[in-house]
């Protein structure tokens, strides 16, 4: 899984998860950007094409100090990226977004586990 996080806010929440030794899969890798509203939808398609099972945007959410409507702006990035994924034949569910605050260590780990499970079950062969 590829995570886009933000320098000022969600990175600190993810750091706190590590500092608290909260375990999550080592397959979760992070690229930090200044603000989640600045993520280009093409980057998400690129990641899926490059082989990532899923992309998670650890968004600034309402705490964003740059833009007060960061949630809406990042939401538009997600909608556009999901449309791009579908157009390219990928399941839109391979992209997920949630606000991760600077102390959201446990929510981050929870999201990683939940998203990891969802991606695993989506890719598992149908039984029966």
């Amino acid at each position, binding site marked *: 899984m*590829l995570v886009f996080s933000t320098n000022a806010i969600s990175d600190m929440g993810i*750091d706190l998860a590590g*500092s608290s030794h909260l375990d999550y899969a*080592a397959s979760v890798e992070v690229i930090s*950007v*200044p603000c989640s509203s600045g*993520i280009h939808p*093409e*980057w998400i398609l690129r990641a899926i094409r490059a082989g*990532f099972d899923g992309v998670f945007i650890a968004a600034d959410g309402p705490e964003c100090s740059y833009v007060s409507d960061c949630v809406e702006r990042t939401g538009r990035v997600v909608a556009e990226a999901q449309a791009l994924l579908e157009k390219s034949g990928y399941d839109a569910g391979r992209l997920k977004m949630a606000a991760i605050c600077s102390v959201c260590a446990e929510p981050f780990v929870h999201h990683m586990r939940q998203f990891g499970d969802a991606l695993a079950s989506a890719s598992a062969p149908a039984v029966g």
Partner: protein
Amino acid sequence: MTDEKSRRIGVVVCQCGGNISDYVDTEKVREAASHEPGVVSTQVQMFACSDAAQQDAIREIREKKLDGIVVCSCSPKLHLATFRAMAERAGLNPYEYTQVNIREQCSWAHTHDPAGATAKATGLVMAGIARTARSQPLEPIRVETLPQALVLGAGVAGLRSALALSDLGISVHLVESSDHAGGQVMRWGDLFPHDKVGAELVASLVAEVGRRENIQLYLGTELVEKSGRVGAFSVRLRTFTGDQIPLKVGAIVVATGFEPYTPKPDEFGYGLPGVITLPELKEALARRPKPLVYGGREIRSIAYIYCVGSRQSADDGTGHAYCSRYCCSATSHISTVVNGLDASVKQYHLFRDVRTYGKYEALYESALRGGSLFLRYGEEAPPVVRSQDGALVVQVKDRLLGGEEVELRPDLVVLVTGMVPRDNAALTRVLKIPVGQDGFFREVHVKLRPVETVVDGVFIVGTAQGPKNVAESVQSALAAVSKAGALLLKGYVDLDPQVAKVDPNLCVWCDECTKACPYGAIDRVAYGDKEVAEVNPILCKGEGACVPVCPKQAVSVLGYTHEQVTSMIDALAKEAV
């Protein structure tokens, strides 16, 4: 930018004294990095941040003529500045340095999976190398600053800001939208903890402002326009007569204050005779009436209802989910004032929680000693206030009595109202500073940059930022003055050069980036025989809101260019665990 294949990059892998190397095979990571194109130096260090290790890295940068360096260690939050300074000491541009977090986001998170942690660290290092290979030297944007400040709001926080700036030799334009200085405190009586009367406190500050030659006070005046940049803002004021005043200032201090919460009709009986708010009681007691009379009625008992307009459920649509901080202490204090006026008055405090933090606990104890009774109610069962035969009746289920209903018949019901943000919509549009979910202006970082906003040179103080008492308001005012003073007295400021940049060859001027930019940092300019977008690097904050809306990928943030981010994605995918 040089071709990434011809780069000379150094990689330092830190063991962090076992914090990393107990779970990550650092030698294996170094070995993998050493085979990357462009990497000409690799090291493993016990502590990369130690003086000795930094000296090693500096020597390596100089001897091997490195043009980029990657340090794989802890979170950039801890040592980004350390290693940027190290790069600078070695003669390397600090923006050619990348810090890769293999501790908080790797070794510490995967202690049960050393193989996975090592593979992940390798991927992260490769991504760091890919980013650095596409980096370019950047220089801080240095701009001059004017030793003049604009202070908006002449309440206690604004007055105190103006005086402290004046002390530093900075000229101040102090702007107040109402026709008098003093703000909310002006109307209050005794203030805790030292019983200084609000009007007297304000009067002493206003008198001192009047004595300062380098403070100009504008009453009945508003800020209507702001342009320019930190250190040299062009602002325009409009007086109540419609006159326009243009000014040039280096910094802006926003001290526009709060509004007391006004209860809705019938909220806890508001509107019934004898049901008033805490500010109304404070104003009435400022006249020190004896005997205690309100609305022509002698007051023999008072019921205070706490948390009115504060700590409301998030789903009630008001947004007043926060605690207003000052009210518990203010109410404990006012009950001691009442006690001082007439000790026989019975006082009942209907509270949810008492938050008289720090030294204000003494006020609560003083209220208790004065005979006040405290009854605790739950959010799910708020007190009911009604009128019966011309008298007030308050019913409350006291949690401390196991939920038993208690009926009071006070002469006065005081609703302990919190603070709500002022209607700052117009000011927000002019200043372009963010507002939080609670409606108050928002700082960059609540702990580390508590009075700075995302707009360089614009500071928020006092209750414009959120509920505070007078002491806390003045503390934040003086904090902002020290930040503004440091900025203005140095004569210049260095801005982060990691801002957006437009490739004019790709740009076709569709206007999407200007619409997306929250800071008005993008202009339309001529480029050859076409028009293109151009970023003003002084106004740009580098958040990249313009990046996803550009249909041509013509704009990106330096340090996070499309090329850099996609190369990192590819590098991570190649090494994926």
